């Protein structure tokens, strides 16, 4: 009998409760990446997450850390209050595009312009998933939704909001990046983006936001593998991947390399 060593397994910062999402939904992947980063940075005892309205509304059942539920779109405002009351805590919000780019646009813009020391995980799947797949501000041009079956028309609905680019112009002290989870290579890059978004807060050097392009197989009316191909071909063409806020890039990068060596032997670590 050969001995086997466990190299990848469910992170400790995630509970045993199975995800409530549809098969193939990218929320689960992003939950796991956030939990892995919490494990690697060893912040589970001082992390406070803020859930949003949307499909991820009940993700306090999945994360094994303190969680607070905010009103629809008001995650950054609640995070601001928590961070100012408890400066040692690590505050992150987990928001979808219906929460952050639609009803919560005011809160996120002002939190970014104040360069609050919070981390925002922004999941962009282009539809209002929880309410049945209506058109969101981030829906692509021509993409059919249940509220606009003929596809998004920019004459009546405007153009999709590019939140990462928009917020990087108002937030001088920040780390703002966009990543995707459509294949393994990009999942690794997304984890690095989430990690840096946490590190920029922990190092007290600025506001951190990781926008993750996600798939919604149910409301895109596609199978999960087809969704991954659609992200690769259509979604990235409109939402380019990369890091948009350059001012604070250097400091977290240095600490990233230092901390990576220490955690290399732990399960789920790259």
């Amino acid at each position, binding site marked *: 009998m050969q001995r*086997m060593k466990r190299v990848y*397994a469910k992170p400790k910062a995630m509970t045993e409760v199975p995800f409530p999402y549809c*098969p193939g939904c990218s929320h689960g992947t992003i939950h796991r990446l956030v939990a892995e980063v919490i494990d690697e940075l060893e912040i589970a005892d001082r992390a406070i997450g803020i859930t949003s309205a949307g499909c991820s509304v009940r993700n306090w059942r999945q994360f094994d850390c303190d969680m607070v539920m905010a009103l629809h779109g008001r995650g950054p405002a609640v995070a601001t209050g928590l961070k100012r009351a408890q400066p040692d805590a690590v505050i992150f919000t987990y928001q979808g595009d219906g929460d952050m780019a639609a009803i919560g646009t005011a809160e996120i813009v002002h939190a970014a312009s104040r360069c609050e020391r919070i981390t925002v995980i922004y999941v962009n799947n282009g539809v209002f998933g929880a309410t049945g797949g209506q058109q969101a501000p981030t829906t692509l041009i021509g993409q059919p939704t249940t509220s606009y079956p003929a596809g998004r028309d920019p004459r009546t609905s405007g153009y999709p909001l590019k939140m990462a680019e928009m917020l990087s112009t108002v937030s001088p002290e920040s780390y703002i990046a966009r990543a995707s989870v459509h294949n393994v290579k990009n999942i690794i890059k997304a984890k690095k983006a989430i990690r840096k978004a946490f590190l920029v807060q922990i190092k007290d050097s600025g506001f951190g936001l990781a926008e993750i392009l996600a798939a919604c197989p149910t409301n895109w009316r596609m199978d999960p593998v087809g969704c991954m191909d659609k992200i690769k071909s259509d979604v990235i063409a409109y939402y380019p991947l990369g890091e948009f806020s350059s001012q604070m890039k250097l400091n977290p990068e240095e600490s990233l390399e230092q901390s990576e060596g220490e955690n290399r032997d732990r399960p789920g670590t790259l």
Partner: protein
Amino acid sequence: MNKAKGKIEIDPARCKGCRLCIWACPQQIIKTVDEADRRGIQIAYCPEDALCTACGFCYMICPDAAIAVYKKETAKDFSE
């Protein structure tokens, strides 16, 4: 002698049968069971551990964190 470099374990309670692991696996060794379980889901399983290289692609792509990956211990692991 079993030459497998690794093996995977899929948690049947978490797997939702989305088939992303089947698509991502470079060795193409993950399959779904023929009969659906009581949730109506054909869960994934790995019948041929001999070809598994413990690359972790299935773990990375899995949206439900249902997969654990094990790698054969090498002489370096024993010396540590």
